[in-house]
């Protein structure tokens, strides 16, 4: 449980703070401007990409073959920008984890692992791993919204607290989802193509 808390803490030095999960592009296009539109964005993200990532974290925690999971998650992530964002966050997490929680299974991960697999291996318990992953799928974009749109941190926190993160984690331990989000894929690719100043890596 402590591992899950540390991984979900925004002060964990895994480099997750440079990713907005599509929020920066959505904000730049005026698709997310205020608390209601942020709530809609986070809800959609949690129930698509969030559920997908949580399912893979749970599967990795159950001890399933990491190489197979890696290939299956690649197949479920058609956007190269999304694959790179997931692997970049996986690399960052792995770097911190090698010092904190060295293990044989951690060493069995590729050098460039998808983040949900790292979370699954580290947390060990499928439900806790899914919960951590589902929470991270919305907490990063939520804090990015505070920075990019100047939204009220108390209001944003209340939105996150009311999201069905636990329901998603419960579903994620029962299935290996394949849910896609066409709009998030389009936003992720457009973010990479966007010229000019970007605060976030994704």
């Amino acid at each position: 449980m402590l591992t899950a808390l540390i991984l979900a803490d925004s002060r964990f030095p895994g480099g997750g703070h440079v990713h907005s999960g599509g929020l920066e592009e959505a904000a730049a296009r005026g698709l997310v401007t205020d608390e209601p539109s942020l709530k809609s964005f986070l809800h959609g993200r949690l129930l698509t990409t969030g559920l997908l990532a949580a399912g893979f974290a749970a599967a990795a925690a159950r001890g399933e073959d990491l190489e197979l999971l890696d290939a299956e998650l690649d197949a479920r992530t058609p956007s190269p920008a999304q694959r790179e964002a997931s692997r970049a966050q996986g690399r960052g997490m792995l770097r911190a984890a090698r010092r904190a929680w060295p293990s044989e299974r951690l060493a069995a991960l590729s050098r460039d692992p998808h983040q949900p697999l790292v979370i699954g291996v580290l947390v060990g318990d499928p439900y806790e791993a899914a919960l951590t992953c589902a929470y991270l799928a919305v907490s990063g974009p939520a804090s990015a919204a505070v920075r990019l749109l100047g939204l009220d941190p108390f209001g944003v926190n209340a939105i996150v607290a009311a999201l069905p993160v636990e329901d998603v984690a419960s579903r994620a331990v029962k299935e290996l989802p394949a849910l896609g989000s066409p709009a998030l894929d389009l936003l992720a690719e457009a973010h990479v193509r966007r010229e000019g100043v970007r605060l976030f890596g994704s």
Partner: protein
Amino acid sequence: MKASARLVVGLDPHGNSVVRVLRSQSPLTLVPARRVGPVALVHLVSSVTSPLGGDSLELTVEVGPGASLDLRGVAATLMLPGPTGLPSSSVLRFSVEGSVRYVPEPTVVTSRAHHTAVVEAELDGHAELLLREVLVLGRVGESAGTLSTSVRATRCGKPLLHQQLVVGSPSIDSSAAGLAGKRVVGTSLMLDAVPRASDGGEWWNVVPLAAGGTLATALGDDVVTVTRVLDAI
């Protein structure tokens, strides 16, 4: 209504793709074109209004080494609710050693429809598959029923693409992290050896898949906009 149909296409000694097995079962009626050539053309005609709630449809397509199949629809598919309130389902299985192009007309998910559509494609080492899907959320002025589509494509057992899309949940359909309030979603899956550069605009893009192949995706407010984008790729 339960129906199961099967289509097998192979290569004859003269280099022509020929239909070897054609088993239709209404509403899945397969109509081969009377022509001889390197590509077999078959139309998939829905000979009874379908799918209605309660329907269960299954189509299996096998294409042998060197053979080529162009499978087309003739009209848009309307997914409708049935009298019983039961969900409907369709399963389309491709087993490809040659080449398949499947470009059906758009599918409209009418209000109160509840449908699950599954596409499974297994390709051998050099097989090619082009698969297009255009979904429309409801007729004009109508909200969509519920549709879950799943596409899984593998090459020699290894996954190339596995995507599930669920439409008909208003909170996700309207979310900028779902379908962004767009009524039409189109995809074109191209599993072949043709290299295509990443490209995109505001609501469309073309991306290389991790294990080979290309996926084009377009969101829009109408079918014309979306199919125009997919046609241009």
